């Protein structure tokens, strides 16, 4: 599915930041509101990294729960389903401040392995 496209894109980003060094770990933040299946992404990651300087790199996935900021009472509360509703005052006017991300948070490289 599209986890392959995402894994490919993560690899591009990782290699760019690694600047030729061997990548040992890539840490992702995946919001609950994104359509990503972690096991599928891990499987795709194994496939796309083969033969690259990221082969064997661990893909860590931190799931980020959805959090909504209430326009009425200004509090931020976790959201677990639809409709989004403020956990403090019950208002339905929320702005999602966490849970939509799909980002490369950090990575680890072997600093001694810079390409010649």
């Amino acid at each position, binding site marked *: 599915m599209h986890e392959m496209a995402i894994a490919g894109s993560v690899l591009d*980003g990782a290699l760019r930041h690694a600047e030729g060094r061997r990548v040992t770990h890539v840490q992702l933040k995946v919001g609950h509101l994104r359509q990503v299946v972690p096991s599928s992404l891990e499987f795709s990651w194994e496939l796309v990294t083969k033969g690259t300087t990221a082969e064997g790199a661990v893909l860590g996935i931190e799931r980020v729960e959805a959090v909504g900021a209430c326009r009425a009472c200004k509090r931020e509360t976790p959201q677990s389903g*639809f409709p989004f509703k403020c956990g403090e005052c019950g208002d339905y006017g929320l702005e999602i401040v966490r849970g939509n991300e799909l980002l490369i948070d950090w990575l680890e490289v*072997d600093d001694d392995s810079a390409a010649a």
Partner: protein
Amino acid sequence: MHIKKIRVVEDALDANNTIARANRDDFDRAGVRVVNFMSSPGAGKTTLLERALEALDHELRIGVLEGDVQGSLDADRLAHHHAPVVQINTDAGFGGECHLDANMVRSALSSLPLDDIELLIVENVGNLVCPAEFKIGEDARVMASSVTEGEDKPLKYPLMFRACDFVLVNKIDLLPHLDFDLEAFLANLDAVHPGVPYALVSARTGEGLEAWFDWLRDVAQRGREAA
């Protein structure tokens, strides 16, 4: 071996988004507004597009970019209109992708007469999941959800329904033959995407289509206001 940690904090789809921005720049330079039209397979995108071309062809300079895994069936159907139509096949060198991404759209730009059109409608691959994840450089997103697909779809595919600026509820001419609960569908839609504009339409009978045409006119208008 000396392990070094590097802080990145970058969108995982950065590569796609960078190309989407490049597409956007090209569209802006040519004064073209772009609509990303999505739905599940068979919801009626191409027919809705045909109706739009029939109604707006002489009023707006429209171009169409067709995305399908294989074949040119959709492009062929639209070929007899004035609008230039270009077909992208995602299996042709893109591995049979289930969605259009910014790179695929970019590859088709040179085939489109951007200086001759003001509105580009990109008919995405029929898929309720993946297309919502990939920006292509569009100004607006619209989806079609047909009444034959059931009233629970917004709850099952929230990302798509949340990602779109306008929802066409199509095939309403079939309502007498279905157990589709329109009220429940609209409640589910509002729960997932509060306040999203929608229109009840039938591409077949023409009912409700003026709202679809008006929405396209509005999107095309955004370009002229900015000029």
